[in-house]
């Protein structure tokens, strides 16, 4: 199954994010804040944040999906703030994140890419730093692999059950 991940058309993923991300409402709706278009410093001045902060003042319990996304963001920050820019990962920070947080995923990957290769793959704008947008490529890859794996496990369990029934 993990061969699937390596065979996956990674260019498709990158392209898809570049193109789709700029699509509906989410990005074209407020023209000033596309993380892909602008240098980071200008993000802080956009109107987008005024709206978001007003919304986030509503005290509602977070949904499971929101909690999971918060975890992803927290984990990213735990490593990004260690060196240099607090919101991007250096190669060293990326290595630490992968080795500590994706240890089980890595164990199952057959053709392990080195950290160098992963870094090169993720660093789209070639600034030797991995921004949150860029690390999401890796997160998505692992999430898709997780999904595939859980289906494989389920299929194996079904087959197992089937065999047991035949024995009786």
């Amino acid at each position, binding site marked *: 199954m993990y061969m699937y991940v390596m065979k996956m058309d990674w260019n498709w993923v990158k392209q898809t994010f570049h193109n789709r991300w700029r699509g509906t*409402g989410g990005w074209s709706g407020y023209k000033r804040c596309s993380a892909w278009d602008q240098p980071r410093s200008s993000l*802080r001045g956009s109107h987008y944040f005024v709206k978001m902060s007003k*919304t986030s003042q509503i005290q509602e319990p977070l949904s499971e999906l929101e909690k999971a996304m918060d975890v*992803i963001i927290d984990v990213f920050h735990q490593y990004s703030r260690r060196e240099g820019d607090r919101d991007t990962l250096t190669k060293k920070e990326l290595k630490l994140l992968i080795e500590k947080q994706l240890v089980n995923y890595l164990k199952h990957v057959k053709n392990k890419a080195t950290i160098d290769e992963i870094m090169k793959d993720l660093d789209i704008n070639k600034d030797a730093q991995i921004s949150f947008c860029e690390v999401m490529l890796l997160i*998505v890859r692992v999430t898709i692999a997780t999904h595939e794996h859980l289906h494989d496990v389920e299929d194996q369990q079904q087959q197992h059950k089937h065999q047991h029934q035949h024995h009786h």
Partner: protein
Amino acid sequence: MSASTQSTATLPETQQFPGNCTLEMALKTIVDVYHRYSIREGQLDLLNFNDFRTLLTEQAPTFLQACGRNKREYLRKLFEETDLNKDSELTFEEFTIVLAKLTDDSFLSHLMEGEGGHQLQQMHSPAGAVG
């Protein structure tokens, strides 16, 4: 079950995937949430438009409320854009496009909150662009 030969300082190491690491558990949660909605209608592993709309309404209300995204046309457009092979169903891979948007939105709002109150005041100008 094989015994682990190495030990990490902070987390118990497991041989299974997804494991006990915080990040991997969060990703497993995302997969579980996806399935909870994909099984409701039609094919068990695919999200049709209704599943998709219910998922976002229940699981990502903040995302939808921000900048007027909770209009039906937005969701319809988002679905069509995400449905790459145009079969009116979203596979998990297609869904991850939306997931990435959600997470990045969330990240940007965290960035904002992290700056503190004084930045908010500076930004208070008529937000005419969106609505």
